[in-house]
């Protein structure tokens, strides 16, 4: 309980750091939300008046304080660009990105675990070599390039989906999931390749350790050794990686959202940075920070369950 409290406090500290960093970042980079809103035809006086109205002329610390107090009260502000509450805007977009991330994550786990285990078991066999080479090639292809290739092959040639034909989950959930299948695959592919490589390496590494050899020489059947000890230990680095991969899928699907014309959170974030729409950027980055931290927290917990030695030392 004490441990959880400590963690929670630490997380709040991180959020504070992140939000301040975003404010600082926006005060450094050029670009003026008032000017952006009024465009090239506006007179300098009008821009000045708008800056005043938006409170942009106040010192950084005042603006930060104002934002922070509102944020604590659950008020994320109004988007400069869309004039709608940020909360509403994000709430509408989160299901899109989250669905995609979860689908990609499931694909990663479901495909890479068996492949990792098979390749490790058949180390240096034909299957292992083939998968390893395919893996390397997949990892070497830039994501937007593979996205385009997927669109080209599955969309235009095989006609399995309509390129750019995104349907919102509010209109038709089935079509929504169907459209997101290929983008999720595009996100998952490099992660699958990396996980397979990692799991395979880790398994082989672990199996060569003394305890595994001893267990084997004692006449335990390999099945038992493999699953009871080796797999468990080999999973530790893989879990760290998967945790980061999941956070990365939520935070970093921008390229795929772009290639497949999906109006998700990443695209809103990118355009909002471009529009200098601070309230939106702040809220999304805070959201991503929370997800990253929660995932890391869970990874930590899983660590303790999988490897009790860490727990003993730390508590």
């Amino acid at each position, binding site marked *: 309980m004490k441990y959880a409290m*400590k963690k929670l406090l*630490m*997380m709040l*500290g*991180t959020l504070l*750091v*992140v939000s301040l*960093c*975003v404010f600082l*970042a926006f005060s*450094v*980079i*050029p670009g003026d939300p008032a000017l952006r809103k009024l465009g090239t035809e506006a007179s300098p006086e009008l821009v000045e008046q708008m800056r005043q109205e938006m409170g942009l002329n106040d010192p950084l610390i005042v603006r930060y304080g104002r934002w922070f107090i509102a944020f604590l009260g659950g008020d994320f502000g109004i988007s400069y660009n869309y004039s709608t509450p940020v909360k509403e805007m994000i709430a509408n977009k989160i299901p899109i990105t989250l669905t995609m991330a979860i689908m990609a994550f499931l694909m990663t786990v479901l495909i890479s675990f068996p492949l990792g285990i098979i390749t490790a078991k058949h180390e240096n066999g034909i299957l292992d070599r083939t998968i*390893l080479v395919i893996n*390397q*090639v997949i*990892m*070497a*292809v*830039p*994501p*937007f*390039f593979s996205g*385009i290739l997927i669109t*080209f092959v599955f969309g235009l040639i095989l006609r399995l989906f309509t390129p750019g034909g995104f349907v919102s989950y509010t209109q038709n959930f089935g079509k929504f999931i169907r459209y997101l299948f290929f983008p999720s695959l595009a996100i998952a592919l490099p992660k699958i390749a*990396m996980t397979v*490589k*990692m799991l395979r*390496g880790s398994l082989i*590494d672990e199996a060569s350790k003394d305890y595994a050899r001893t267990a084997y020489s004692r006449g335990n059947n390999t099945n038992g050794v493999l699953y009871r000890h080796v797999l468990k230990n080999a999973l*530790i*680095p893989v879990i*760290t*990686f998967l945790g*980061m991969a999941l*956070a990365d899928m939520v*935070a970093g699907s*921008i*390229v795929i959202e772009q290639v497949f014309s999906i109006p998700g959170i990443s695209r809103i*974030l*990118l355009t909002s*940075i471009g529009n200098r729409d601070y309230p939106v*950027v702040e809220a999304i*980055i805070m959201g*991503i*920070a929370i997800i*990253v*931290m929660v995932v*890391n927290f869970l990874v930590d917990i899983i*660590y303790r369950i999988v*490897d009790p*030695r*860490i727990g003993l*030392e*730390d508590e």
Partner: protein
Amino acid sequence: MNKSQFKRNLRDNPYLLAGMIIIGLVLLMIIVGLFWTPYDTTAMNASEKLQGISLRHIMGTDNMGRDVFSRVMYGSRITLLIAIGTVFIGAGLGTIIGAVTGYFGGMLDEVVMRVVDALFAFPSILLALVIVSVFGTGWIQLLISLGIAFMPSFARIVRGEVLRCKNMDYVENARLQGVSNLRMIFVHILPNIKGVLASSILIGFNNAVLAEAGLSYLGVGSQPPYASLGKMLSDAQQYMFTTPSYVLCPGIVIVLMVLGFAFLGEGISRWK
């Protein structure tokens, strides 16, 4: 090791051989490119726009009639420098931070890891924009921001590994012998996690090349008319259907470069 043994090892290790050949070719191209390119990398030619592969232009030409091969020779250099620099900064800082925090644990670990979390949540695009507006546009700035953006993942991986290692018998033994903390980290623990670190570095190298392409796409990377491979690839995308050679050539060179290093890494880890 004598010569014949070396040869035998090489024969048993196709990854190393393939990696060496591919990287050798890429490096050869980059080195030759320092002194000579078939055409001026920026010279335009209106009558030879978007040509396919020919004897005159072995990788065809781009939308400005510039020779793609000459530009690839130049672009590979920039891409390689960015990727190496990024991994150097990211892995260097990340390893130190991850190892120290993982080893000592406690409050320091908590605080530093929260900052690392914060960085992880911070979009690399925003980071790049900040760095660009403070230091100006260009590939060095891009390299720095990518390096910082890559640091957290290295820190987390190294920390996880150090946590795993620090309770192992050999560390306990060393500790009983009175080995100092720093020596423990850098001499006893780090060499034991070099496998995981090496594979993360190679993945990081790969990601650096790809991330560079993404950021160049947003206009914060190498500046025209001197393009990195990633920038060329994203510029070329729209000509996919009319002049596939313009897309495929820089694309294949990127893939080869990453693949070469990956094979090399795989080969080294298998070296007997």
